[in-house]
């Protein structure tokens, strides 16, 4: 389980996150929803070690993550798929996947590599092609595949639906949900598109201006009229 306790982040004078606490259990998808600028990406980047928090902590199964650099956090089992389908466009599909988890043994990596191709068959078909020749949906699958190569116990997905067709978003998120329950990893999903996120998530929190304004089961939050008008605009 990923536990976030009282996490606060400043960018200069701007308070991006303020005393955020949140638990992300294994086997489930936990959604973080909120408007633009609510602090969602900051939360993800802080968990991944790209941003230093001012106070508070995050831990995975008791191991403290905060204070470690990104390249160590991923070794501790937390993999981030950052916003914007981040792959290395100049490298091939195979090379992008090989990049993930280079510290692991060759045999382990080969096994995960094969699992990723099972999960995303289109990547296997395109393995020799440069990543920048892929469609948006394929690149998002590649970005998730690269993160899975790191053998994460916790997967952080930052806006995977951005710029993708709704049908592809549904496919990818259903796959993520299955992944969470089958491999028993904790998934934290950040989405601006609340409807999509609440459809796959078990629990959800709503962030506004860096603070958690509500948390509960996804269905509770989806049916909360006032909240939807106030924070989600839908």
């Amino acid at each position: 389980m990923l536990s976030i306790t009282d996490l606060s982040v400043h960018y200069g004078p701007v308070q991006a996150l303020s005393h955020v606490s949140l638990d992300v259990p294994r086997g489930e998808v936990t959604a973080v929803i909120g408007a633009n600028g609510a602090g969602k990406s900051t939360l993800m980047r802080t968990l991944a070690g790209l941003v230093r928090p001012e106070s508070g902590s995050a831990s995975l199964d008791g191991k403290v993550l905060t204070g470690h650099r990104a390249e160590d956090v991923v070794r501790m089992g937390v993999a981030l798929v950052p916003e914007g389908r981040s792959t290395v466009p100049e490298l091939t599909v195979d090379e992008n996947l090989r990049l993930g988890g280079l510290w692991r043994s060759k045999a382990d990596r080969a096994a995960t590599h094969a699992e990723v191709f099972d999960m995303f068959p289109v990547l296997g078909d395109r393995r020799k092609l440069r990543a920048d020749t892929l469609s948006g949906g394929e690149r998002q699958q590649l970005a998730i595949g690269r993160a899975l190569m790191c053998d994460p116990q916790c997967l952080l997905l930052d806006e995977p639906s951005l710029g993708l067709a709704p049908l592809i978003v549904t496919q990818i998120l259903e796959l993520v949900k299955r992944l969470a329950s089958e491999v028993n990893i904790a998934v934290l999903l950040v989405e601006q598109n609340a409807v999509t996120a609440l459809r796959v998530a078990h629990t959800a929190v709503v962030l506004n201006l860096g603070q958690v304004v509500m948390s509960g089961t996804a269905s509770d939050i989806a049916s909360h009229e006032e909240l939807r008008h106030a924070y989600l605009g839908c």
Partner: protein
Amino acid sequence: MTQFLDYVLGGIGSGAIIALMALALVLTWRATRVVNFAQVGQAMFTTFIALSIQTLTGSWFIALIGAIVAGAILGVIVQYLVLRPVKRMDTSGAIIATFGVLIALQAAAGMIWGGDSQAYPQPFSNTAISLFGREWPLSVYDLVVIGFAGVLVVGLTLLFTRTSLGLSMRATAFNPEVARLSGVRVGRTLTIGWALAGVVGAVAGVLVAPTSAISPNSFDILLVFAFTAAVIGGLDSLIGAVALGIGTGLILSVVSGYSDSSNAPVVALVLLALNLAIKPEGIFGHNSARSV
């Protein structure tokens, strides 16, 4: 026509050396997006170290090994002490800092070894090879230089395309954030890139020294040629640096042959200007924007 061909052939040896120095520039560019103008200063410094070792031991080979080790260490020192702190500001600051390093290295070399030109011993025959009843404008030494360049290019290409370290270096160059999130130790990878460039530059320095002489400023002109070759080759491309390095050597040899060797730098600058006007991304480069 025969004379023309002789001039062309005569340029291969110097072209291979330009190619190596261009390769060193490309390596630092790929690793850190900085053109390291101190590269020739580092090569000059390590060549002086090699000369000292040569004088002590009498072995050209041990001196070469010494230069390679010194090149790697100096590359790490420059990257760690100068580039890392400056890079936090901006890229142009880093480029200017490399000029500062160049001047500092030249001053230091002058203090340690003196400002006069010193001869570097010739390890292999430097006289024209006679074969099939005529003299060729190539010496055994030229062939050794070409051999070194070939081995380094093939070795580096294999390193980049076949090894995990090479994959990490490419990913770090293209997208450092994704590399870090994948677990690549980016800082260490950048340092290795600079060490590698230092090694290639050191080899180039030891190879060029016997054909001219060595003084604190003697490699400055090599920087002009290598920079021209690296930029026209596309800055990102190892193959481009080598092809254009050798090409530059050939063109300069022809120009020097028909006119005067003092015209060579002008020709190099004209080529550079033409390249920037017609195809600024370089012949082997990708068309992404860059500023040098």
